[in-house]
């Protein structure tokens, strides 16, 4: 949660963005000259909980 003061500071200041996951959000910001670093991330095992559990036990 952010306070009203935090929000006005966020919106009024210069944005520096780290985007995690879908790259479309990063490209949209970059198109508007907003500095953005994109982190290519997906949930483990493509989001399959059974596979993710197996992999966890197998040491990844």
């Amino acid at each position, binding site marked *: 949660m952010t306070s009203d003061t935090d929000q006005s500071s966020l919106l009024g200041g210069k944005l520096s963005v780290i985007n995690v996951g879908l790259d479309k959000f990063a490209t949209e910001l970059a198109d508007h000259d907003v500095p953005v670093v994109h982190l290519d991330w997906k949930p483990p095992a493509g989001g399959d909980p059974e596979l993710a559990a197996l992999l966890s*036990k*197998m040491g990844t």
Partner: protein
Amino acid sequence: MELIEKANKEAIRRMLGAEPVLIDVVPAGEIVPDLKDKMILHAGPPVEWNHMCGPMQGAIAGITVFEGWADDLEQAASMAAGGGITFDANHHHDAVGPMTGMTTVSQPMLVVENRTTGNRAYCAINEGLGKVMRFGGNDAEVLNRLAWIRDVLGPAMGKALRDMGGIELKPLIARGLSMGDEMHQRNVACSGLVLRAIAAAMAKISDDSTALSEALAFISANDQFHLNIAMAMGKAIMDPVRDIKGSSIITAMSRNGTDFGIRVSGTGDEWFTAPVEMPEGLYFAGYTEADANPDMGDSTIVETIGLGGFAMGASPAVAGFVGAGAASEAANYTHRMSEICAAENPEWTIPSMDYLGVPSGIDVRLVVDSGIAPTINTGIAHREPGIGQVGAGVVRAPMACFEQAVRRLAEKVGIS
């Protein structure tokens, strides 16, 4: 998990400790014990005639005529469809083959010996680019070239290699990486290095200057000549890595134009398959993606040992050729493949990436966990039989193979 980590350490030790040497060229019928008359070994996991793609069926028909088992292509196709030909995967016979990967009794096979472990692996000689049998070509021009390779080039290379004591491949690859090859879609440097290594020996044993001149001209004109040597080398390196209990290292990746298959050390010789994907790439003049056949060939053994798409950073020129983006993107492919590999190869380094070792030992757990599929640089065949190569591109291995393998390996090590 300690069992897996220990097993993978052993797998990497065997991979990086391999000493592959190109020692001979011998007809397949003399060195592949179970290869019989009217039997064809093909690329990829096993596939029956009815499920083969167009270029695979075209190559089958062509090689059947070439071996004299049928009088023409129509009779050959009918013979294959009627059960008159026995099919099996190259990988089941210590062999590999690019694209359609035809191996039959009379094919001269490059022989690579792993001097650390003593095992040998085989691959037919590269025919050149364009309309060739590995891309499904099967007309008289294709068959005449194969006959010349069988009767002239193969025996000459074999005699020269025996006379000179073979060509050590590990240092040759190291040099090729520093000269801009990734050894799958760019073999310009390594092909030149092979020619330089073997030319004097071929001249020494030759008593026919015209045949010698033609043989040297053929090697000189084929930028991909070294690909098949790299493939036999890959097989010779990876076969001793098979069957290490608990190991999650991938020992083979291969495609038959219908299915993509992988094998994992800890699950033995079992194939895990899924439908192949379409390469994305660039096409020769006059062709488009509508002409393209899905992914095909045993050549992914090159990626399995850390070359090809894994070594893209060494080869900015190939990034453009296969439509993988700007030259500056090449290093990103290698960095990404590092995320799914257990090690780097300290003897095969990429100078332009501060001598980073090529990513080696694909860990099936890391592939599934990260969702990063191996990147493969590949040629693209026409979907119809008899036409040949129409382009080159990049293709991702289908994730379903790796997910199946993880489940099976978990069973094998007692995890549920």
